[in-house]
């Protein structure tokens, strides 16, 4: 994980609308989290993430939309739910990740394009990979 510099928090930077949308889409109470980090510890993809799963929750509830939007974390998440079943607070981080992805995908912006998947991969990948990949990473 790459260490990020300090994050500036100020009322001016708070994106209340972003917090509201994320809560609405995920159905999660962001205040449940007490930042224990079990989500990050259980995440098999954490080493590929620039912002850790735990930090994503903190940034989301601070409304720091730009930090999250500039991060690869939600696109690296494989929705394996290791975070969700291990959370001592019953917070479903996978749903938060999905909500943040959707805020981009619903603007008709895809994270991957089917035509960028190599022709060989399209033949080799099992259908469940293609269906789930395109559902999670295209809008």
């Amino acid at each position, binding site marked *: 994980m790459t260490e990020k510099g300090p994050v500036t928090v100020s009322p001016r930077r708070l994106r209340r609308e972003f917090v509201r949308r994320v809560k*609405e*889409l*995920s*159905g999660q109470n962001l205040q449940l989290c007490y930042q224990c980090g079990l989500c990050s510890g259980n995440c*098999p*993809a954490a*080493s*590929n993430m620039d912002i850790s799963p735990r930090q994503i929750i903190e940034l989301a509830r601070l409304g720091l939309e730009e930090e999250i939007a500039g991060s690869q974390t939600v*696109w*690296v998440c*494989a*929705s*394996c*739910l*290791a975070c*969700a*079943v291990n959370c001592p607070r019953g917070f*479903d981080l*996978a*749903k938060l*990740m*999905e*909500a943040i992805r*959707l805020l981009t995908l619903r603007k008709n912006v895809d*994270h*991957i394009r089917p035509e960028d*998947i190599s022709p060989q*991969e399209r033949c*080799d*990948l*099992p*259908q*469940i*990979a*293609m*269906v*789930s*990949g*395109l*559902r*999670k*990473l295209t809008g």
Partner: protein
Amino acid sequence: MSLAYYPGCTLKTKARNLEEPAVASMEALGFKLDEVPRWNCCGAVYSLADDDLIHQVAPVRNLIRVKKHGKTELVTLCAFCLNSLKRANLLMKEDVEKRDALNNFIDEGIDYSGEVKVLHLLEVLRDEIGWDALAQKVKLPLRGLKAAPYYGCTLLRPREIAIDDVQNPTVLRGFLGALGASPVDFPESTTCCGSYQVVGSPGDIAEYARPILSSASSRGAEALVLTCPLCDYNLGRGQKELMAKQRGSREMPLFYFTQLLAVALGLGAQVCRFELNHGRPALLLEEKGLLSRREIVQPIGGQR
């Protein structure tokens, strides 16, 4: 006895080696896996957003058609199909508002409220047949086969649809025990293989596979036992890439649980379609004296 059966797309092409031994084995156990008519894709991943109903349509439509077909139980083999169908079913059972919206939109002529019970074949084996009864039917016990159960994600998460204990599942251990094999537990048995990330980031897959394979191997496992075609693809591909980097390392064979079932029931290599597996898993069975050399179907050139 006939069981309504939902195969899923992948089992009709790349994972015939998961389906065909299952159908043959269940027949040997006195059950007919009766494919439901007019099924469509299950959607593979359950949508996690509260307002996203369009992505629940595919699994719900299947469930409605199963109800229309007059069945109350539906058996799946693919862990992804189980997950999306079972979660969508739970939604239809519990969320009245979304249930009405989905029923109205899908417009299949009948209303659905989660009446169909979605099962994985392992649950049928465990709960309807039972390990003791299964052990009685075994003709060729898999003695000496040290196999590590690998569950992956979708059989066990989220908690509400898990077919077993989320943290300490035992269903595959019981299954392997009934077949006479020696199950090897390892902590990474529920760690994600990378799932659909292989679509956008294929370069990361080997690193997902590494801890899973090395942990199982370091505990003495000679093979991994899988339930999911995407785990099979990712671990198989990851292992191939890792082996290319680390020459001389021994390949860990990957089996579908249904293949071991068919072998133990004495159905032979033919129904197992080992030519669709990664590497050459049948060689391990031959080493153990569980398959004769002439039975092993050689891998087809270029297959995977």
